[in-house]
């Protein structure tokens, strides 16, 4: 597999399908058809596609709170998935699980809303694979914030000490909710993996071709040696932490709203007792820069789909064909799903 070239059109199709699917989810969420929290994979499609398209039957995936796109790419029935997000009894998990608790036994895919839990989960999948003398690997998807979770750290140790085929895929968007991960992370993540005896590399997770190529040889090698590997791949989250992200709302807000938001801020700036005014200024500056920084990241040039598309422009015709095919699929899907739902009402 090492020398194979990526089928970048196929990768683009995966990414585009995932993007369109999630945009549809976003719309349904906006319309109030989906309740509760909703974390999107918008912006990390290149990592998901670049990793997942190497998987074969029997490989397992442990997901965090951003499971929609990986599930789609792994081939879970999109209608069932969408129905699940809508809390429908015909959903993937009969409406019991919902978007942070998505499971597919036949695909060996498990999710958890507990940050860091995908580490031990992937270790367990890999243990079963090795025990059964299969050549299957297990993927742990998680964020750079989760990389500090205690059980994630010791799952590195387990994978190394037991020499298990776990591919740790850290999707690094620099931030966990609103915390710049650098500020709460000692040292360096790939160094950490190495110090546990696990080989690791940093990747540009926005470039699907690159991710695919690197993973081709990594995964190929993992199947041979049945040993772990660690990837940190940079990415962005176009919709911030979750749909309705308050920092993005602040960033996008009109002047009226931003006065409403800064009102209380100014109040705490001028309250009598507490830290010095200088310190308070520093705190405000920190928050403001956070807002700007998160906003900045989301510029178009960081969008993995835009990047991939630029590469494909030479064959515009094929590109358009793919896009319109996917658009059709999505339209059919939403039509179908809506019919199912209305059928109940």
């Amino acid at each position, binding site marked *: 597999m090492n020398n194979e070239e990526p089928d970048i059109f196929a990768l683009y199709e995966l990414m585009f399908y995932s993007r369109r699917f999630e945009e549809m989810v976003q719309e349904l969420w906006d319309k109030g058809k989906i309740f509760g929290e909703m974390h999107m994979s918008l912006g990390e499609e290149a990592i998901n596609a670049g990793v997942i398209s190497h998987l074969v039957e029997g490989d397992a995936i442990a997901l965090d709170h951003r499971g929609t796109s990986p599930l789609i790419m792994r081939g879970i029935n999109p209608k069932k998935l969408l129905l699940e997000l809508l809390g429908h009894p015909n959903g993937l998990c009969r409406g019991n699980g919902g978007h942070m608790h998505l499971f597919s036994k036949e695909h060996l895919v498990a999710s958890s809303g507990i940050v860091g839990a995908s580490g031990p989960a992937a270790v367990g999948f890999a243990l079963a694979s090795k025990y059964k003398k299969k050549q299957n690997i297990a993927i742990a998807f998680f964020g750079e914030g989760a990389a500090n*979770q205690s059980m994630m750290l010791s799952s590195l140790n387990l994978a190394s000490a037991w020499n298990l085929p776990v591919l740790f895929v850290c999707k690094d968007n620099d931030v966990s909710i609103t915390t710049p991960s650098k500020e709460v992370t000692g040292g360096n993540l790939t160094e950490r993996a190495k110090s546990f005896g696990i080989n690791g590399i940093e990747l540009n997770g926005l470039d699907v071709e690159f991710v695919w190529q690197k993973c081709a040889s990594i995964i190929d090698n993992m199947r041979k040696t049945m040993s772990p590997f660690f990837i940190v791949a940079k990415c962005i989250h176009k919709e911030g932490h979750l749909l309705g992200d308050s920092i993005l709302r602040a960033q996008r807000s009109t002047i009226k709203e931003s006065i409403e938001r800064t009102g209380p801020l100014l109040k705490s700036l001028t309250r009598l007792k507490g830290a010095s005014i200088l310190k308070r200024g520093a705190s405000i500056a920190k928050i403001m820069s956070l807002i700007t920084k998160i906003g900045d990241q989301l510029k178009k040039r960081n969008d993995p789909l835009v990047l991939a598309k630029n590469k494909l422009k030479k064959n515009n015709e094929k590109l358009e064909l793919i896009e319109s095919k996917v658009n059709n699929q999505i339209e059919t899907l939403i039509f179908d799903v809506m019919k199912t739902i209305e059928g109940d009402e």
Partner: protein
Amino acid sequence: MKKMSFDQAIESVIQQEMINDKNIIVMGEDVHTIRLNLFIQFGKERVISTPICEDAFLGAAVTAAMAGLRPIVEIMLVDFIGVAMDAILNHAAKVNFFSGNKWDVPLVIRSACGGGYGDGGQHEQSLWGWLAHIPGISVVVPSNPSDAGNLMLSAIQMNSPVIFLEHKLLSDLWLDSMAYGGRTTVNFDVPSAGKYSEVPTKWEDLLVGQLNVVKEGIDITLVSVGVGVHRCLEAAEILKDKNISCEILDLRWISPLDSSNIIRSVKKTGKIIVVDEDYKQFGLSGEISAILLENHVNFKYGRICTEGTIPFSRKLEDQVLPSAKKIVEKVVLMFEE
């Protein structure tokens, strides 16, 4: 009288106490934005954002408290407390006893809890009765802004660990960030008086373990906490039309439990229904029945609790969580028996 939201009330007390006592610090994930006002007012030395490692930072907070600080630690959702359970079960709760009662652990653990907005079973648990099983900690669950402020004051001033649980349906902050997110297309059954209402002009340290008789009545006692109290109030309105007079007790403290006032009420009414959003088995509802029996009270008993993992689907969720409708039905049934 002054009105405040549930969140504001808590923040206002913490702010006041942080001015009074330099040893109070706030710790937790994203507290620099979640508690933005405190962060700006007190700076990053006192409002400390943590990495995501609940076991380690809660464990650290226990010894920080032993060394003279008074940490208010946030575990975002109480569901995540499993990660930090050892720090509670074997450390926070036991240090004072182990040390021969010589060493205090003045620690407040703040967590959002509860369901009713479609987030699924790993994000909507209540767990208060579960936590209260552990000797050596207190568990408190306010149901309105006034209590929230007063009880936070009590919690901060206690010299032993307190778990302070805030129901998400009462909290603007959590509900806005987790469920509404700027959209106006969803609606949840938010008890308005629990979310925003009158507060005292001066916060007062409420007696530890004292329940609140929210409504006096003579026919039946309804016991609850948090959002459940409002469900009981709603049910009581409906039951009034059926000529049933409910007495409603808002426990506020799960642990220590106000046994004597529960006993007093049930001795009067002879009937009790416990309305508990936490899991039914081996929890609050059972404990209350045991206490009444141990005290030789004669009574009819019922309970409305969450019986299994909470489903994601809003429809299913509404079926499993306690509701005014369920309370009315159960009360009526009890009177028919």
